[in-house]
C-alpha cells in the first residue's frame, strides 16, 4: 500500500509539535493499520534521537581569552575610567590634580590678551605702556602681555605678566617690580596673591 503524502505531512507536523489534535488521531489510527508508515515514522523518531544525541561540544580552552585578545583596542577613555574605578584614592588625587592644572592653564591661556591696570596718566601705544617722563603714577601697575616703559615714577608695585619692562634711568618705582613670564611663575604669582588676599581678609577682620 502506497500511503498518501498527507500522512508524511502529518508526521512532520507531529515532529514539529504543531499537529492539531484531530490530525494526531488520524495519524495514530493510520500508523496502527499501516506497517509501512509506522516504519517511516519510527525511522524519523530514531533519526531525530541520534542527531540530538550527538555529544555536545565544548569550545576549546582559552577560547574567551583568544577572542578578547583579538578584539580591536578599546578607546583609551574607557580603560582610564575602569582604572579610576579600581583605584578610587589615586583617582581622587588625580582628579584634583587634573582640575587644578586645568584651571591654572585655562586662566593662563585666557589671559593672553593685552591688558593694563587703569591709571589716568599711563600712555598706551599698541602693546606698549609708557609711564611718561615727569609723571607720577599712583597705585600698582599691572601689565599683561605687553611692554612697560617706565620713564617717570610709579608709586606702587609693578607687575608684568608675560611681557617686558624697560626702566629708563630717570624712571623710578617705589614698590616692588615683578615679572611673570612662565607658567610656573604664573602659578607662584597666583599662590602668593591668594595668600596675600587671605592675610588681608584676616587683617581686615582684626581691624
Amino acid at each position, binding site marked *: 500500500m502506497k500511503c498518501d503524502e498527507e500522512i508524511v505531512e502529518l508526521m512532520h507536523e507531529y515532529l514539529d509539535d504543531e499537529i492539531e489534535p484531530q490530525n494526531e488521531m488520524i495519524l495514530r489510527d493510520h500508523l496502527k493499520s499501516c506497517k509501512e508508515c509506522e516504519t517511516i515514522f519510527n525511522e524519523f523518531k530514531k533519526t531525530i534521537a541520534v542527531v540530538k544525541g550527538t555529544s555536545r561540544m*565544548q569550545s576549546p580552552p582559552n577560547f574567551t581569552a583568544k577572542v*578578547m585578545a583579538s578584539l580591536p583596542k578599546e578607546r583609551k577613555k574607557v580603560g582610564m575610567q575602569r582604572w579610576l574605578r579600581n583605584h578610587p584614592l589615586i583617582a581622587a588625587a588625580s582628579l584634583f590634580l587634573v582640575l587644578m592644572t586645568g584651571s591654572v592653564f585655562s586662566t593662563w591661556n585666557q589671559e593672553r590678551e593685552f591688558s593694563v591696570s587703569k591709571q589716568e596718566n599711563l600712555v598706551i601705544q599698541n602693546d606698549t605702556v609708557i609711564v611718561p617722563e615727569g609723571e607720577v603714577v599712583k597705585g600698582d601697575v599691572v601689565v599683561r602681555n605687553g611692554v612697560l616703559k617706565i620713564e617717570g615714577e610709579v608709586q606702587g608695585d609693578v607687575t608684568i605678566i608675560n611681557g617686558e619692562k624697560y626702566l629708563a634711568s630717570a624712571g623710578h618705582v617705589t614698590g616692588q617690580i615683578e615679572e611673570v613670564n612662565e607658567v610656573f611663575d604664573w602659578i607662584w604669582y597666583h599662590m602668593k596673591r591668594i595668600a596675600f588676599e587671605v592675610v588681608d581678609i584676616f587683617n581686615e577682620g582684626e581691624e
Partner: protein
Amino acid sequence: MEALIKKRIKQVIKGDQDAFAEIVEIYSNGIYQLGFRMLGNRHEAEDIAQEAFIRAYVNIKSFNQDLKFSTWLYRIATNLCIDRIRKKKPDYYLDAEVSGTDGLTMYSQLASNSPLPEKELESLELQESVQKEILKLPEKYRSVIVLKYIEELSLNEISEILDLPLGTVKTRIHRGREALRQQLRYV
C-alpha cells in the same frame, strides 16, 4: 540571564571591553558547536566562532536591544558558516577525523593504550556517521537541522536567525529530516 546579557551589552556599548568576556563565555560552546556541525572540523569551528564574536563586538551598536541577543549572535555565526561552506574547497585537517566526538582526535585515540570498550566504539561510530550525514546535507537544510536539533532552537527563532519565513523553515526542516532518515535509518 537575558537581563544580565542586556546589562553587559550596555556596558560594552559604553566601551567597556571587559564586559564582553562574559558574553563570550556564555555563548562560546553553542557557537562553537554550531560551527563544528556546520563545517565539520574543529579548526574551522574555532575560527568561525571567534570571527562571529569579533563581528558581534564590532557591530554591537547596530544590535537592536529589544531583540534577543542570542538570535542576533546566531544569525552572525550562521551567516559566516554558510559563506564559508559556499566558498569551501575540500580541505582536511589532521584533527578533523573523528568527528562528532568530544575532544577525541586521531591523535588522542592513538595515544590511548587501552582499546576502547565496544560500546563506546559503537557510539563513536554512530556519532561519526551522524556527523557525516549532517555534513552531506545541502547548506540550506544543514543550517535548519543543526539549529533545530543540535542547538535546540524554536522554529520561530530559526526563522529569525535565517531571516526566512516560518513556512520556508518548516519545509527545509522536513526535507532535511527526510534526507537524514534515508541515510540514518539503518544505523
